[in-house]
């Protein structure tokens, strides 16, 4: 395969990854790295570097739209970014110290977990509005526009959410993904943030989280321009299309399809990692 053909194929794959990742809120990174390593035989370190760059593009591109619509909560975002960026630095440093096989195994495990999360029916948005003292002091509670007007919500269990976000950041730095699944666990389950707010706020945070580790990757020589170019442009195109559809498409069946894909890729990554083929 010459560079031109390789670039075109990687671009197409990245458009699809970005589109699905944006629609499901799990990010394009979770399918991108397996796609590059399993199908294009790219070394996992290059794949993670390129994915990380695309994650910044996706996040910033989509976040620009959501922030303007007033759905994202910039205070929740900023507060939790302390945890995710610290985690991202840790993850990036770990990436240089553990073998590519181990990275593949961790990646496989995260994929399996993501498939489980994506396949789950979305948790019901909390109806009770009992303020949590810490969340109130941090001014994390907010409201967002719905078809029925503005809806107010209260944030819960801030310390648990903060700790989980540190883990999400570490996985992001280690694997070059947005770790949407862990963020869902932290923000939807622990902190009880309404789905639309958590999805868009998580999108908003992913860019900063990825930027923290991208600097480390760049200086280590993991970010290859020839590979990152089609990946970044493709994922950006796909996620732009996906963000246009967030309010129109019924995502339930799509989430099931996406979780099945992730399940297969996760099993593949686990197998290759354990067999030492990555």
């Amino acid at each position: 395969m010459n560079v031109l053909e390789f670039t075109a194929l990687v671009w197409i794959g990245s458009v699809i990854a970005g589109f699905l990742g944006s629609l499901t809120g799990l990010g394009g990174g979770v399918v991108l790295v397996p796609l590059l390593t399993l199908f294009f035989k790219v070394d996992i370190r290059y794949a993670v570097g390129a994915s990380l760059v695309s994650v910044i593009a996706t996040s910033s591109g989509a976040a620009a739209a959501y922030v303007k619509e007033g759905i994202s909560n910039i205070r929740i975002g900023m507060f939790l970014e302390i945890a995710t960026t610290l985690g991202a630095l840790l993850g990036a440093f770990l990436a240089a110290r553990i073998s590519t096989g181990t990275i593949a195994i961790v990646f496989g495990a995260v994929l399996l977990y993501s498939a489980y999360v994506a396949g789950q029916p979305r948790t019901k948005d909390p109806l009770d509005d009992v303020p949590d003292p810490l969340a109130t002091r941090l001014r994390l509670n907010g409201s967002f526009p719905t078809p029925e007007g503005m809806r107010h919500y209260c944030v819960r269990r801030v310390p648990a959410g903060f700790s989980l976000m540190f883990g999400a950041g570490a996985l992001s730095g280690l694997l070059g993904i947005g770790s949407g699944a862990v963020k869902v666990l932290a923000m939807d389950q622990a902190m009880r943030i309404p789905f639309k707010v958590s999805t868009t706020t998580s999108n908003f945070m992913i860019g900063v989280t990825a930027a923290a580790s991208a600097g480390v990757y760049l200086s280590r020589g993991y970010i290859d321009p020839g590979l990152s170019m089609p990946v970044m442009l493709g994922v950006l195109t796909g996620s732009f299309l996906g963000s246009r559809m967030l309010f129109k498409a019924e995502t339930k069946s799509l989430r099931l399809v996406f979780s099945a894909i992730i399940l297969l890729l996760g099993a593949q990554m686990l197998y290759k990692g354990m067999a030492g083929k990555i």
Partner: protein
Amino acid sequence: MLGVPTWSDRKVEEGIGTLLRTGVLLSAAIVFLGGAVYLARHGESPADYRVFRGEPSELRQIRGIVHEAVSLRGRGIIQLGLLLLIATPVARVIFSIFGFAAEKDYPYVGFASVVLVILVYGLLGSS
């Protein structure tokens, strides 16, 4: 009332939205340009990313990347666009610091500053 976005909250949000969009579009345009140069010159070469070699030192540091881009090397221009992309969230955090300061929300000025220090450390401190 606590937590309900105020007028200046909205203004900060709109500013952030514009900043992010500009950063991403500009870096995508630069990456695209660099990609065109790269493909025009190296499109026929074999693509091989199986073996990890690591990037040459001039594509790892800010000064080297700028030099390569100014010399109109395709890979250098792409890398410059990627560098700009990485800088976009950093600029967003800086913007937020000013936004929170304008609202006299000092705890959040502090939180945003901590995030900025971590980001700068990742970009400069690790090389």
